[in-house]
């Protein structure tokens, strides 16, 4: 099961899109700068463009096989597409848009019943309206529901949140998470936004100039960026799964590995939950010696594992109950005489511990 892309190639200007991937995760984020070929890749999978070579298989069914001249037309692929410009049909009402691809009584339709999808995506009050006067977030949900109502076996989403502001994004992402959890179909999600990637991705494929620059979990991809050209990827960043223990006066206590951190973050829902804990390398201060008086909320006893040169800076990999990465100047490392095996204390201010809910 899953989506298989084998030896795919499609000439684009100014490069050729090349892809080889066996996609099994629930949400696979295709991450990369604009013009990296992300939308073209989705168009190939949807059957809106033809590759010049390669095989595309969905759940074992061949959709494209260039060598065998197999090309299943878009309408028979069972692939739901949420394009970047959303492409709601402006002359139809919300309800007519939703029902455009709905085939009641065919296949696994109980899962994609109209009432259920309308409820999951909170569209009850919108169905009688026209699409042109919907807000950005409402349009987003209607487009998503329209794709789901066609009972797809795969969902393609092309920067669906790109036009929304940060606050609206945080409101829509839980809906996407619900779709992921309730409908059990793989989702290919294109974005150049770090935040969306961290919030949604099970797997991440970094695409740069039409080629796969990196593939793996978000921790791998952002924690050890293989391609410095990838936007939003920092030369050194710690991304670790954590568990929120409690929230008090905007101060959040979160467990990461065997360490407990304090984060300062507004607008976090109360209660506990899973989150990614993100700490930029240049927000970490290292201190040697015993007596430390500092305003930083997080004092983490750590052992230096390795030092690596990154341009003019040094990347220090530490162990402090979880893998932590610090970014220091070369001079600082030399003055502190840092070497692997040293015991240090890592200081991180609470506002520098960023939480992204999962």
């Amino acid at each position, binding site marked *: 099961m899953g989506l298989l892309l084998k030896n795919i190639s499609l000439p684009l200007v100014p490069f050729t899109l090349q892809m080889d991937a066996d996609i099994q995760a629930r949400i696979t984020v295709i991450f990369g700068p604009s013009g990296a070929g992300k939308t073209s890749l989705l168009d190939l999978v*949807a059957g*809106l463009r033809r590759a010049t070579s390669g095989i595309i298989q969905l759940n074992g069914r061949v959709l494209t096989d260039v060598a065998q001249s197999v090309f299943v037309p*878009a309408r028979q692929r069972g692939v739901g*597409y949420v394009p970047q410009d959303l492409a709601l049909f402006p002359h139809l009402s919300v309800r007519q848009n939703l029902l455009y691809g709905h*085939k009641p009584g065919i296949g696994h339709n109980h899962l994609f019943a109209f009432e259920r999808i309308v409820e999951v995506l909170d569209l009850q009050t919108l169905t009688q309206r026209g699409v042109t006067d919907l807000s950005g977030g409402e349009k987003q949900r209607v487009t998503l529901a329209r*794709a789901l109502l066609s009972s797809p076996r795969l969902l393609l989403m092309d920067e669906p949140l790109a036009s929304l502001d940060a606050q609206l994004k945080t409101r829509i992402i839980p809906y996407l998470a619900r779709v992921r959890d309730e409908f059990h179909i793989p989702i290919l999600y294109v974005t150049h936004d770090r935040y969306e990637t961290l919030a949604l991705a099970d797997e991440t494929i970094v695409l740069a100039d039409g080629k796969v620059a990196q593939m793996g979990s978000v921790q791998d991809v952002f924690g050890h960026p293989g391609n410095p050209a990838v936007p939003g990827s920092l030369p050194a960043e710690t991304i670790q799964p954590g568990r929120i223990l409690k929230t008090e006066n905007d101060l959040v206590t979160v467990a990461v590995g065997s360490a407990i951190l304090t984060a300062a973050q507004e607008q976090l829902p109360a209660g506990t939950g899973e989150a990614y804990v993100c700490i930029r390398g240049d927000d970490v201060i290292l201190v040697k010696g015993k007596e430390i008086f500092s305003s930083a909320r997080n004092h983490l006893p750590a052992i230096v594992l390795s030092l690596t040169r990154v341009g003019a800076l040094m990347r220090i990999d530490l162990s402090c109950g979880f893998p932590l990465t610090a970014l220091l100047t070369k001079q600082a490392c030399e003055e502190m005489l840092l070497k692997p095996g040293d015991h240090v204390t890592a200081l991180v201010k609470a506002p520098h511990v960023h939480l992204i809910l999962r």
Partner: protein
Amino acid sequence: MSADEWQIVWFTAWVSALSTIIIVPFGLGIAWLLARYVWPGKSLVETLISLPLVMPPVATGLILLKILGRRGAVGGFLHNHFHFDVVFTWRGVLIALGIMSLPLFVRSARVAFEEINPRLEQIARTLGAADLRVFCTITLPLASRGIVGGMLLAFARALGEFGATIMVAGNIPGKTSTVSLAIFQNVQLGQDANAFRLLGVSVVLAFAAVWGSEWLMRRRKR
């Protein structure tokens, strides 16, 4: 107005309307092909379609007369095999009006098609719609303003056509005489009062056509 004049007005209105209705399917097909595809001979077809717009109507009429006349290629064939005549009949009027108004309709429809975001049609396909359904439920409705506008232009052009009609169909009272031809003839004969009555009628027809299409567009928008 005399019975003869009413006959002329009635004839002009229905033959213009019929010519417009007949060119719509052809025009839509051509406009669609021009708007969406690249094919060999495209620019030749584009030019041929537009010729009646730029050539003197009388010249277009002369070409039609030569093709459709009893000694012409098409007209001769029709006459010899089916005893069917085109020139100097109402069918000649119909063809002259259709040829003269086709480019106006094709231009409007083509622009209307080109203005549709192709993404909408692609997404309709991913939702399981076959090409014909996409065309009927997405493309046509979205292009409807341009298409209706083009039909109005074509109808208006047909109402006022003179040069091509007089070449192909002559000005036979009670048979091929249209409002334009009759006005011209009346003025030539010094019957200005008759000419002015017909002038009044053509003004009313034009108003009705424009208002009708505006009303249609408003209804669509709601």
